[in-house]
């Protein structure tokens, strides 16, 4: 199990893998520092979630907005003038376009959510290191519904079989007393002229695959 945010995060990693300049360099969550040989790289996290109540009456229901953050990083060597920084900024624009096409166009993602409520984008370029560094931060605010079914307790003991027993009224033993069946307390005391006698005349056992 896991939260809806976990599912959405996995969905976004799946749609982004191979869909952008970063290729399969899509990581989640990735908390190690990025070194230039690893770029271009995408990192996917779900840092923020907000549950907003639908009202005071009945069972608790929420409109839940999950923020999935996609961080893209790339580098470029320096050139005379501003050419290196221009190249980084242009590449960030291409990367943003690729991410938007992959995520916003994804059926796997949109079937899980009510809407993409908003997308916040910011980017930056820096020459403070041996290469021009560019970073793109895209926050996808994904709106979903959550209700009582999302918060029901998970049974501690799994149900692995369902059984139906038949103790018939017209098939019975006049004198015997049967014990050890799930329904022996419901038997008519012996001697008897009709069932139930506490013995199962037929049973249906239904195994439930786990």
């Amino acid at each position, binding site marked *: 199990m896991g939260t809806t945010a976990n599912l959405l995060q996995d969905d976004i990693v799946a749609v982004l893998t191979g869909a952008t300049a970063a290729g399969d360099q899509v990581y989640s969550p*990735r*908390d*190690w*520092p*990025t*070194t*230039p040989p690893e770029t271009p790289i995408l*990192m996917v996290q779900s840092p923020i979630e907000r549950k907003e109540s639908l009202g005071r009456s009945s069972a608790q229901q929420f409109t839940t907005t999950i923020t999935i*953050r996609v*961080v893209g*990083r790339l580098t*470029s*060597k*320096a*050139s*005379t*003038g501003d*050419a*290196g920084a221009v190249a980084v900024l242009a590449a960030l624009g291409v990367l943003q376009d690729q991410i938007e096409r992959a995520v916003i166009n994804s059926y796997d993602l949109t079937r899980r959510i009510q809407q993409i409520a908003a997308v916040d984008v*910011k*980017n*930056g370029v*820096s*020459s*403070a*290191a*041996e*290469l*021009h*560094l*560019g*970073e*793109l*931060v895209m926050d996808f605010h994904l709106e979903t519904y959550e209700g009582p079914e999302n918060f029901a307790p998970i049974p501690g003991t799994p149900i692995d079989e369902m059984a139906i027993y038949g103790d018939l009224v017209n098939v019975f033993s006049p004198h015997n007393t049967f014990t050890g069946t799930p329904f022996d307390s419901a038997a008519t005391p012996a001697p008897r002229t009709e069932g139930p006698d506490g013995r199962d005349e037929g049973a249906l056992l239904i195994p439930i695959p786990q």
Partner: protein
Amino acid sequence: MAIDWDQHVLAPMMSAGVFGENVQPTFMPAAGGSFPIDGVFDRPYHGLVLEADGEPGFATRKPVIGVRLSQFTVDPLKGDKVFIPSVPETYIVSDVRPDGKGHAVLELMIAA
């Protein structure tokens, strides 16, 4: 100035085999030409965070070279290049930080 820093401090300290590069770097002004210089080169770890909040940041290097301005007919400028044989790599000067006593730190970036 009472003390000739370049003659008494920089020249002996920054020459090849002391703190300077054993093989002299080649300086290539954007205006053209090239000449060898004494230089103290270093490229230490440099971590930085751009747009994302906090960790994880970039883990990279910040190359710099210390030079004697007396070896330049025109002071070094942004956009000039320098080749460091020991790396070996050609760098572009991204900033010039003179210390006022004849020495300047040139901030470098790897040239395309």
